[in-house]
């Protein structure tokens, strides 16, 4: 019998390239299950990614898919969505892809509230290039370019998305893929710019450099550093520093960019305008 997954993947591409225990595969599974639950017309689904281990996801699913360049997935997706607003456009990025090289595009996509769903696989490291620190590497943790510990303060991706104007913002984990799927479903269904951050693992880089020995230990670690949104609110500021809140942080309605542009088209056509 074909599983849900079998119905969506490009089987010839498997086994995939990711390392044993890498969270990218778990996130891919969660995305596929969310899409399947929504029962969308497959011909109208487009998945766009940047560059990184996580961005390889687009090669594995049989939609219209595009593995673009490092950091720029969102503007590519913006062009696609503007050109054909009937398409459901999902953008999958790594933490570095989304918030280092692509940080500017991220805040502007949120500001415009363009109807895209951004799924960010946050393994807190540059996996593909071998474990350099990213803007989401926690302070004091190690990376190949932070051999003495990271002194940078990391972004809170969700807070950034909210401040920049996104319509839906949530955070899940690979430890709880069921919750991740349900958050993704809500995000995919939301009109406007929706964001789901998934706390993930990179056992070979982050794990090794930060003395978390195995994929199993990484999952346990993810369980330890995450708390429900409600529990998070009861924590002291010091306790909060060590933890990530999990759940839905924002769901609001605001006209999305493509709708607003339809208004522009109406205006331009009605007024005839100054030539």
């Amino acid at each position, binding site marked *: 019998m074909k599983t849900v997954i079998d119905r969506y993947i490009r089987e010839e591409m498997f086994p995939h390239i990711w390392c044993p225990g890498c969270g990218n595969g778990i996130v891919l599974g969660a995305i596929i299950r969310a899409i399947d639950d929504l029962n969308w017309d497959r*011909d109208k689904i487009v998945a766009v990614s940047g560059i990184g281990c996580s961005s390889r996801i687009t090669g594995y699913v049989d939609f219209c898919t595009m*593995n*673009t360049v490092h950091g*720029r997935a969102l*503007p590519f997706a913006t*062009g696609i969505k503007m*050109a054909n607003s009937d*398409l459901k456009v999902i953008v999958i990025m790594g933490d570095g892809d989304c918030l280092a090289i692509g940080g500017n595009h991220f805040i502007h996509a949120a500001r415009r509230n363009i109807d895209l769903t951004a799924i960010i696989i946050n393994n807190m490291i540059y996996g593909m290039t071998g474990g350099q620190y990213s803007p989401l590497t926690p302070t004091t943790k190690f990376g190949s370019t932070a051999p003495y510990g990271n002194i940078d303060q990391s972004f809170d991706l969700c807070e950034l998305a909210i401040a920049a104007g996104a319509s839906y913002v949530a955070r899940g984990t690979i430890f709880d893929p069921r919750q991740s799927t349900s958050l993704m479903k809500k995000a995919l269904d939301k009109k406007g710019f929706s964001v789901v951050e998934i706390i993930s693992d990179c056992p070979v880089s982050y794990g090794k450099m930060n003395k978390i020995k195995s994929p199993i230990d990484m999952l346990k670690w993810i369980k330890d550093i995450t708390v429900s949104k409600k529990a998070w609110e009861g924590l002291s500021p010091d306790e909060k520093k060590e933890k990530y809140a999990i759940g839905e942080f924002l769901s609001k309605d605001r006209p999305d960019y493509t709708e607003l542009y339809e208004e522009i*088209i109406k205006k331009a056509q009605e007024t005839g305008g100054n030539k």
Partner: protein
Amino acid sequence: MNNLKKKKNIKLLQGNEACAEGALLAGVKFFAGYPITPSTEIAENMARKLPKIGGKFIQMEDEIASMAAVIGASIAGLKSLTATSGPGMCLKQENLGFAIFNEIPCVVVNAQRGGPSTGLPTKPSQGDMMQARWGTHGDHPVIALAPSTVNEILTLTIKAFNFSEKYRTPVILLLDEVIAHMREKVEMPAPEDIEVINRKKPTVPPEEYLPFKPDEDGVPPMANFGEGYPYHITGLAHSEKGLPISDSQQIDHFIRRIHDKIQKNIKDILIYEKYLLEDADTALIAYGSVARAAERTVKLAREKGLKVGLLKLITIWPFPDEIINKLAHKVNLIIVPEMNLGQIVLEVERASQGKCRVVPYGRVDGELINPIEILGKIQEQEEIKK
């Protein structure tokens, strides 16, 4: 009634405005850009005119994003345009390479200004000729056109779209500050007189579609996203199916094929004009706004009894090697005036294969080269010969 002569529709247009008009005539439906002198009027025109025809305009956060959005919109089925100048053109390069490698049609305008760096924002230059050829990394083909009048900006913008759709490749339109901002009379073609080319669509069912498998002309049919043909696009070396590969033979074949599709069709792509070259012993080779001055120089030289002619290059890339080689066999001297320190002159030298002397004449001070200077260069060379 049909015998009534069609009234010519003459308009006074600025170069950038003519570019926008040409794009509309060619069927542009999407523009993404970021303001920069001397290209901004193209964006402003597009912002005003695109929504009137149901098209879309978006001002992105930078030129990288603009280029990305243009590629995305093209994949989703719209003819797409972006316009910029030197600093912005630098930012577009990585995505331009992505579009070339994935054979995504689009038109990129570079209204050249003095460089390097911020340089001379309001002064003309032809300093980006080699950037147009080699700006993005890796071996790649490119089509670049250089108009020299406002009328040509209009007609070549249409051509640029047609080439991009026909050959599934980005086309660069190289303006310079002078012709971008100059106002001239333009003969507006009637829409029915314009040839508009649209990308080939697949004729096979989705299961059989290979997005990078070429037809005989070297160009693969292109399914737009959302049309029921799921496939993958990647900047990684890819198979005909669009999936990443590491097989060296397939990679070699792919990269040669995207070059070949341009070379094979070079006769269709090469546009140039010859002026008084029949009996010439000295040829000027010029392009863009400098070609205007060079044409005037030819007249002045002829008045003085000098046998000078002009080859005006319009298609810059691919380079017209053969045409220049033939010319080099006929004349004793080729002078290449250009607003840079010698970019196209090196290509002319290469194409001439030592059959005649090739002499550069360059200016990089932001001033337009004038006919008298070029004449002076011709006379100086005459002196040397004696």
